[in-house]
């Protein structure tokens, strides 16, 4: 089929070029109907051509682009900046994909993700477009045929309703000359989704044998289906003028169908209830999420095996190797889609976590004789349930910190010209693909000098290094483990549980935390979080008989050096990596586990960056894996230095380590 592909490449490039010109012209002059029309046709034709090959991401993106242009053509949507941008992005991606096809014969690996992003951007303006579906111009029909049909097929109807399905009736009367047009009503019937009953009748009484014209269609077709009216009509869209549908609503004894324009009521639902929703026990969703997590792990294992098989089989049986690879790619895509879908189910408003905070803040303030106003915004922003739940502890700690150390006593505030009541703002909003949660107070702020002093007193870093830090960097020292007083642990009072626990908790959710402060004016802590539970890539390392995970992000590189090149350095050890001396610690020591004797080669993961790099010695490496990290409940359970756990394919629990927390 390379003739087709060659032609596609030529035409595709031209169509993309045409569409780009049209869109740019349209941006300059939104009233230019000719350009709009031309852009639509170019996108439509390109979409049609793409459909000849198996290029799903491209096809779906172009389909969305076509729908968007169609909405503009129909006057349902204006040609705004957002619309043009989304369309140009889509065309740009199409051009890149065409070139990739020309070079390699396939789309690049990031095509599905990129396609999804384009689709979302293209469909977003359409969501606000109400009434997108033109109602079919069908003369209101008397539904007595549907009543008779439902009565004649009562057992099938009852069975479907008992199973919680909606039942739709459809009557199809093909035109008498439809065979000459090439229509085959039987073929349409074979494609009807979820049919549960079928009846065939005659429009005119059947003539006796001699007079019959086999090519004049005399059929009247009536059927019942549980597929839903929209899907059913879709199957008959080419003969939409020859069909009528009616919903068969469930009710006690005589089944009375609603008229063709009403929605079928939800089985067992109260009349007038619109959409369908279900109450689901949260534990079931968690179980589903666990399964998805396991599936992701399993699909990783599969990918690894397939790669091995393809490598070995590739020459002997390339077709099988390719088929295997394609099948595995299909499973990957499905697994990803499943992950996203289940995550979608778990999306919860942040209000769930925010709701309990005002009272706790009021209590804490009262205890300390302060007045505090807590302003919460954006509690309707949604995120994955794990993230929403996981934020409660860190937020509570931050708020208590603000009340305790941030907001000054009333006299001090008066003296500084501030209102007597301290103001704390907890705000959430979407930021790009993630969520931003900010805790800001108008208190005394953080004094860099005091932080430096405390850091020196706790010996966190060499004094000279501390002095060398700028004020803003010095303030970030509060996130270092060991900054807070060691007596930590049980209560969530303002003392004891340090900012490093907040950092670890937020990072375990896949997020980042940062702090900005102006002495005398207040502090703002920003938490940047992903919307959904993140899949984390971890480097697997062996220690003794166990395997641990180190987040890939935390590991700069791995290295193997001969044992002889380890040098003593003060109380510890070091080695030279590309002309710099890097300290070396043993993971066994960090975790307080027995170490194994060193062999000839020393294996290590280098964490940190620049001058703060440290080599962490391990017994060996066991590859990489994508895992769903489960943060630890509460800030303080488990070993210090543990970011979370993940379930491995073999059912074992993997401990994922918090490197900054361990190394300090």
């Amino acid at each position, binding site marked *: 089929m390379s*003739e*087709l592909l060659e*032609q*596609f490449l030529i*035409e595709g490039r031209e169509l993309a070029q045409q569409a780009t010109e049209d869109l740019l012209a349209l941006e300059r002059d939104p009233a230019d109907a000719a350009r709009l029309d*031309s852009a639509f*046709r170019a996108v*439509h*034709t390109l*979409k*049609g*051509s793409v*459909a*000849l090959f198996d290029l799903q991401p491209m096809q779906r993106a172009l389909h969305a682009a*076509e729908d968007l242009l*169609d909405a503009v053509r129909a006057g349902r949507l204006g040609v705004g900046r957002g619309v043009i941008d989304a369309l140009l992005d889509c065309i740009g991606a199409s051009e890149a994909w065409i070139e990739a096809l020309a070079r390699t014969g396939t789309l690049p690996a990031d095509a599905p993700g990129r396609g999804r992003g384009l689709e979302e951007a293209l469909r977003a303006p359409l969501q606000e477009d109400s009434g997108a579906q*033109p109602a*079919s*111009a069908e003369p209101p029909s008397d539904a007595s045929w549907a009543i008779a049909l439902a009565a004649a097929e009562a057992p099938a109807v009852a069975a479907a309703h008992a199973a919680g399905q909606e039942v739709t009736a459809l009557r199809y009367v093909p*035109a008498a*000359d439809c*065979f*000459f*047009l*090439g*229509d*085959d009503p039987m*073929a349409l019937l074979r494609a009807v989704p979820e049919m549960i009953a079928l009846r065939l009748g005659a429009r005119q009484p059947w003539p006796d044998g001699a007079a019959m014209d086999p*090519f004049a269609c005399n059929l009247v077709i009536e059927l019942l289906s549980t597929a839903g009216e929209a899907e059913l009509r879709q199957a008959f*869209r*080419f*003969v*939409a*003028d020859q069909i009528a549908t009616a919903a068969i609503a469930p009710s006690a004894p005589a089944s009375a169908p609603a008229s063709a324009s009403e929605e079928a009521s939800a089985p067992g639902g109260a009349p007038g209830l619109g959409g369908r929703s279900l109450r689901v026990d949260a534990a079931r969703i968690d179980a589903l999420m666990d399964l998805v997590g396991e599936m992701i792990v399993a699909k990783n294992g599969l990918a690894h095996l397939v790669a091995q098989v393809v490598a070995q089989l590739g020459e002997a049986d390339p077709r099988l190797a390719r088929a295997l690879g394609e099948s595995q790619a299909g499973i990957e895509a499905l697994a990803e889609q499943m992950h996203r879908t289940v995550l979608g189910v778990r999306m919860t408003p942040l209000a769930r976590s925010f709701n309990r905070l005002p009272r706790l803040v009021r209590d804490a303030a009262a205890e300390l004789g302060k007045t505090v106003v807590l302003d919460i915004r954006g509690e309707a922003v949604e995120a994955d349930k794990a993230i929403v739940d996981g934020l409660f502890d860190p937020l509570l700690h931050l708020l208590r910190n603000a009340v305790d150390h941030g907001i000054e006593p009333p006299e001090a505030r008066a003296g500084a010209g501030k209102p007597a009541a301290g103001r704390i703002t907890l705000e959430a909003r979407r930021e790009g693909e993630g969520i931003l949660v900010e805790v800001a107070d108008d208190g005394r702020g953080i004094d860099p000098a005091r932080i430096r002093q405390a850091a020196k007193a706790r010996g966190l870093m060499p004094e000279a290094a501390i002095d060398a830090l700028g004020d803003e960097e010095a303030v970030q020292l509060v996130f270092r483990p060991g900054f807070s007083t060691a007596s930590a642990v049980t209560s969530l009072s303002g003392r004891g549980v340090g900012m490093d626990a907040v950092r670890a908790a937020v990072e375990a959710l896949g997020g980042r935390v940062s702090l900005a402060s102006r002495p005398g004016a207040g502090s703002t802590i920003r938490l940047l979080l992903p919307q959904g539970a993140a899949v984390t890539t971890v480097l697997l390392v062996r220690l003794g008989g166990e395997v641990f995970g180190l987040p890939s992000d935390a590991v700069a590189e791995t290295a193997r050096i001969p044992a002889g090149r380890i040098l003593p350095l003060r109380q510890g050890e070091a080695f030279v990596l590309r002309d710099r001396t890097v300290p070396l610690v043993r993971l066994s020591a960090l975790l307080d586990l027995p170490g194994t004797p060193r062999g000839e080669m020393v294996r290590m993961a280098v964490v940190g960056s620049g001058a703060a790099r440290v080599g962490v010695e391990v017994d060996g490496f066991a590859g990489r894996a994508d895992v769903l990290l489960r943060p630890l409940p509460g800030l303080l359970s488990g070993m210090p230095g543990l970011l979370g756990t993940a379930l491995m394919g073999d059912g074992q629990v993997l401990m994922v380590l918090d490197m900054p927390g361990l190394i300090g």
Partner: protein
Amino acid sequence: MATTVLIVDDSKLARIVAGKAIQALEPGWERVEASNADEALARVAAGGVDVAVLDFNMPGKDGLALAAELRALHPSMPLAIITANVQDEVIARARAVNATFVAKPVTEEGLRGFVSGATLRLRAGVR
């Protein structure tokens, strides 16, 4: 004289695809092509075209407008409209000129019904 089918589409790629599908169904049919409505009308006026397959979405006169013109000249010529999106008014217009819809992308299976019906109609002797 062999049955001659005219394939009208502004995309050469689409014409190739339709041509292959028709060839698979009716190897004996002769295929001629046009890339827009004007070319199509000229070719039909030159004579000998028995069946026409028209892309809906073309610049200038679209497939349905062309079908209407062809229908006026040839009341019984089997006409197919190739399209991906079908809206109700489009269906109504097609029905009004007695044209068949064939979904894009064009395949053998998708064309089979139209080709059968066209054969039937041509056999009935009316051109």
